[in-house]
């Protein structure tokens, strides 16, 4: 008699594989690239909760207000779809559009979570102070060449439009182009939403870099995510013979589709430009009929088929010459892309030497498939690492009024915390690339790594001179944080993480209030340690307090648990003060109103050691910053009094918003 064995209970799969367009549908329409036109993304299996798709992070609602209808939602739990890595890429099936926005947005979220070591949370609703569980995604929200993150509705709105017969269209005239099918655009917009969840006040346009940063950072994420897909890179490396900086399909296509969409064009133009290839050496021509090339160069006759992409060099464009947000942003993207290329070249130089009998010069013709595979894997790895460096730096940014130079400092400090010994010269590559493009902080003595690191609180005040009261405050603060941490588990559901974060933020807020009451002794106004003043001068907002675990890669230190705190304060600068600081600019401004000004600090608190590891401050009392901000805002087209434009991204992205 045989006994029926009970079936073993299998663990659920780790990933759900979903097919998406590797770039956008243009690739699938070309014989040369059709083979690499789609990729499979691995999305965490447990995320999906229902048709829509609705997941833990995202809520895709396919309502099309123009057609006044809902498109039927895709059910990714259907057996056939599970078996087949989702729906096959298709422009004509709205359910595939839902699948693609879901997959790419989740992929971006996963990238952030693995780089940051914690869960992504969306920003709370500013008007009612309520948390937002899921980001809404509308794949067909408007008929417009536009897609944007709407910070009021906490939603991504993707547009679609019919191409006209003019030459700028990237697809055949009269067909529909969907921004929801562009890998780039989805990850770009998702990044806006994630960044808003981390640093709510970074959106404000207070200096030439601040608005540009949001854009440029989103573009960096979109660009490097492409380069971390090895399947695609293999094709790319085979066709460029390993030289990613030359004729580059990824960057090149981004340029082309960007032209169709308008908004992405300006940024991508800075990385590279298309121009007639006079050497006759060009890899692939992906242009469709009727398509023209950027800028003044209009190909004609003989040169029409010979268009090559080439990188823009720092000599052609430099940060110091540019004031417009898109253009400045493009410099930041270029600098990061340069750092990526430098690291990639350094890491693969030995491979090329091995494959070329030590000469370093590859023989003409196709390069061997093994070498392609190795180069592609290395490039993908480097892209992932560079992207992680860029994302980790977000925790080290000042909470308001960011400049590109400060971003460099954040990148260096964040990486220093993970890898003490820069053996592979990643940080050097970043410093060098940023310097080349004219990006550097102005308040450091030199561009050495040690000078670029942010300072700890110990570096800012001598703890020995602290009064007893203040020392007691530090002890109390530490106690508060520790007892909060006792309630925290990294495995907690996202909802609980949010609740925990809110209550911790509240306690931090209380602690800061208590700090103002301290008899401070040698320190005149102790709040200014964190860039803020007693609340009578303006409301203090503790935006988030999030723990994260850091596992140093090189065992240089023990794993540590840090608490990342972001807080800001907005104060009103009255006219008398303004008169002292910037009398010249006052003539143009309205007499009756005051000037709003923000400061604050991003704090990395080392919980294990109980110390303020880094305090990145922007003081509300900084006269030079007030003067610079007035100067900037009265000379730019921005309102001097932050009208908190409800759709900052829409305005920046929308080609029609003139007035």
């Amino acid at each position, binding site marked *: 008699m045989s006994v029926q064995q009970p079936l073993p209970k299998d663990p659920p799969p780790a990933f759900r594989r979903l097919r998406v367009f590797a770039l956008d549908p243009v690739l699938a329409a070309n014989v040369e690239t059709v083979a690499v036109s789609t990729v499979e993304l691995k999305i965490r299996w447990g995320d999906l909760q*229902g*048709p*829509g798709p*609705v997941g833990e992070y995202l*809520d895709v*609602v396919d*309502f099309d*207000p*123009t*057609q*006044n*209808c*809902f*498109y*039927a*939602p895709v059910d990714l739990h259907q057996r056939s779809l599970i078996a087949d890595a989702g729906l096959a890429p298709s422009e*004509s*099936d*709205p359910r595939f559009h839902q699948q693609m926005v879901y997959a790419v947005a989740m992929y971006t979220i996963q990238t952030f979570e693995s780089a940051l070591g914690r869960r992504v949370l969306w920003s709370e609703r500013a008007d009612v102070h309520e948390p937002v569980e899921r980001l*809404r995604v509308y794949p*067909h*929200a*408007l*008929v*417009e060449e536009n897609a944007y993150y709407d910070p009021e*509705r*906490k*939603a991504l*709105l993707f*547009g679609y439009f019919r191409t006209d017969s*003019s*030459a*700028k269209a990237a697809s055949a005239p*009269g067909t529909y182009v969907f921004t929801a099918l562009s890998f780039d655009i989805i990850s770009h917009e998702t990044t806006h939403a994630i960044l808003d969840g981390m640093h709510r006040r970074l959106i404000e346009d207070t200096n030439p870099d601040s608005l540009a940063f949001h854009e440029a950072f989103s573009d960096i994420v979109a660009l490097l995510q492409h380069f971390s897909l090895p399947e695609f890179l293999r094709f790319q490396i085979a066709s460029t013979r390993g030289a990613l900086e030359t004729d580059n399909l990824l960057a090149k296509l981004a340029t082309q589709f960007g032209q169709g969409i*308008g908004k992405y*064009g*300006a940024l991508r*133009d800075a990385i590279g430009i298309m121009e007639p290839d006079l050497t006759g050496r060009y890899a692939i021509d992906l242009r469709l009929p009727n398509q*023209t*090339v*950027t*800028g003044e160069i209009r190909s004609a006759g003989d040169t029409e088929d010979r268009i090559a992409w080439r990188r823009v060099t720092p000599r052609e464009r430099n940060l110091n010459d540019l*004031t*417009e947000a*898109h*253009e400045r942003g493009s410099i930041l993207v270029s600098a990061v892309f340069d750092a990526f290329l430098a690291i990639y070249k350094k890491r693969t130089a030995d491979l090329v030497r091995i494959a070329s009998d030590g000469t370093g010069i590859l023989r003409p013709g196709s390069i061997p498939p093994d070498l392609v595979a190795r180069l592609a894997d290395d490039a993908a790895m480097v892209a992932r690492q560079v992207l992680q460096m860029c994302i980790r730096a977000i925790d080290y940014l000042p909470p308001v009024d960011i400049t590109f130079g400060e971003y460099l400092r954040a990148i260096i400090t964040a990486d220093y915390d993970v890898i003490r010994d820069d053996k592979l010269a990643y940080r050097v590559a970043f410093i060098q690339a940023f310097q080349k493009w004219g990006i550097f902080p102005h308040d450091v003595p030199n561009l050495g790594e040690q000078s670029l690191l942010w300072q700890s609180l110990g570096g800012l005040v001598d703890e020995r001179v602290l009064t007893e009261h203040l020392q007691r405050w530090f002890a109390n603060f530490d106690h508060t944080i520790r007892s909060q941490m006792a309630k925290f588990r990294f495995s907690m559901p996202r909802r609980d993480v949010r609740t925990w974060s809110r209550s911790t933020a509240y306690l931090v807020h209380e602690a800061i209030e208590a700090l103002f009451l301290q008899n401070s002794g040698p320190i005149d106004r102790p709040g200014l340690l964190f860039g803020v003043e007693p609340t009578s001068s303006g409301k203090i907002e503790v935006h988030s307090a999030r723990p994260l675990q850091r596992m140093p890669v090189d065992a240089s230190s023990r794993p540590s648990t840090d608490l990342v705190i972001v807080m800001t304060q907005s104060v009103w600068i009255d006219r008398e003060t303004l008169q002292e600081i910037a009398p010249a600019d006052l*003539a*143009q401004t*309205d*007499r009756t109103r005051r000037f709003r000004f923000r400061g604050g600090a991003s704090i990395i608190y080392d919980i294990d050691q109980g110390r303020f590891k880094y305090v990145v401050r922007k003081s509300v009392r900084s006269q030079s910053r007030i003067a610079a901000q007035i100067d900037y805002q*009265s*000379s*730019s*087209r921005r309102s001097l009094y932050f009208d908190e434009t409800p759709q900052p991204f829409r*305005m920046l992205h*929308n*080609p*029609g918003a*003139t*007035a």
Partner: protein
Amino acid sequence: MSKIAGDELRLPDGASVAVRMYCQGFGDCFLIRGREGFVLIDCGLVLRAKDERDRMLEVVNSVRAATGGHLSLLIVTHEHYDHLCGFNHGADLWKEFRIDRLWLPWTEDPDDALADKLNKYKQQATASLQAAFAGMKPGLAADRTESILGLLPAYSVKTGTALQTVRDMARSQGAAISFKRPGQVDPVMDGVDAIVLGPPHDEAKIFDLEGDAGDTFQQMAGAVNQIIRASGASVAAAGADYEQQLRQALGLEAAPNPAPPFAVYFQFNGLDPRWEKLEFQYQASLASGPDAYDQHWSMSDPLDRELHRTRGPGERRTAFEKRRKRAEELASFHTTRTDRRYYATENEWRQIGGEQNAPIERLALQLDSFTNNVSLALAFRLKDGRVLLFPGDAQIGNWKSWDDQPYSVEGSILTLHDLLTRTVLYKVGHHASHNGTYVGAFNQLPDGVICLVPFEPVTVWKSIPDPNLLAALQKKGKVCVANNPQPGGGTFTLGPESPLTHRPKFVDVYL
């Protein structure tokens, strides 16, 4: 003396003319006094300004006091509320005026074929905008569209009657109405000639609102031109787009009637994208049996066709069951009910829909700029050769056409350059918007030119004034802005304070 008490516009000894800018706000009203009489250019204020009517009445009363109710020439530059509404608000006061002549741009000439064509464009585009506006959700786009529509005569009774008031008034007083064309030179009074610079009698130029790179003061402001240029399309193409939109709006050109984006997919699957509306209708009737359903059958549905063809009651029932089964399938296909999530009360704050307003708003903006571009642009030349420049709200295409013709003044031929280099007073175009002053012409103005800016901040036009232009004006000349007039080194004489705006009622300049 930098302050005056009454409304009198003095003409001091030694001065050829006196020019007064009324400071009512975002709107033009300029009074010029020569040795022999008064010229008034426009009389308006932007729609929905605070105390709009009272402010305008104050202006009209002041004009009457200053001129004794007699104007030797009245000029209306273009048909916009912020240049006209004073004639409507002050209609009763205007009846007591005596006006010798009225000048309008040629675009108001009923006998001009191109004017007729442009007016048709305008009317029908306005009508279609108005229809579109009715469906707009509230928001900034709707506000702005409304305020633009409010400027247009076909929409707003207000402006329509205002221009009519002006014409009727002129006609009843026996004033000569003339429609001015570029190149004309007419004596206004002894010692003052008026030279007509624009609007150009050229369709393409009227549709050129932004010019080429470097023509406006907007430097890479992230707005339309920069992106259009970045994407390699010319600005002319944008103009053509606009014209095409207008043509389609008026039905002169077949508007593409695009299939909905997923038509093929739905057809292929036997679905209708508007299932929400249709399928519910079907289901209600399906529940009540084949006969009730018969009224709803659709020729495009194969099962419906089959049902319709059936004859015998048994066959009919089978076909009907088949149809009903499919309706159920369809319903379950949609039962995941995204719509419930969307319409749920707690989710109302994230509903969308206002976004489709953007193209309407854009068309409205273009229409607005187009109306500005048909402004009557004038240069007043004094006997000694000095020039006062009054471009109305002309946009770049209008400005750029001024060099198309020479100007014959008192027997000598003058070029635009001659006029610009002798300019002593410039009424800053279009309330100092980025494309109301053409860089090429501005650069020819001499240093020290007096610049009068009829402006105060308005919520719907946040980009006005253009800061680059303001900076350039301040660098070049002596600037007086209506919302904050300063005495400015004896050049500007301030009028008495207005109780409505709490600033001087007007600013006088003696030249």
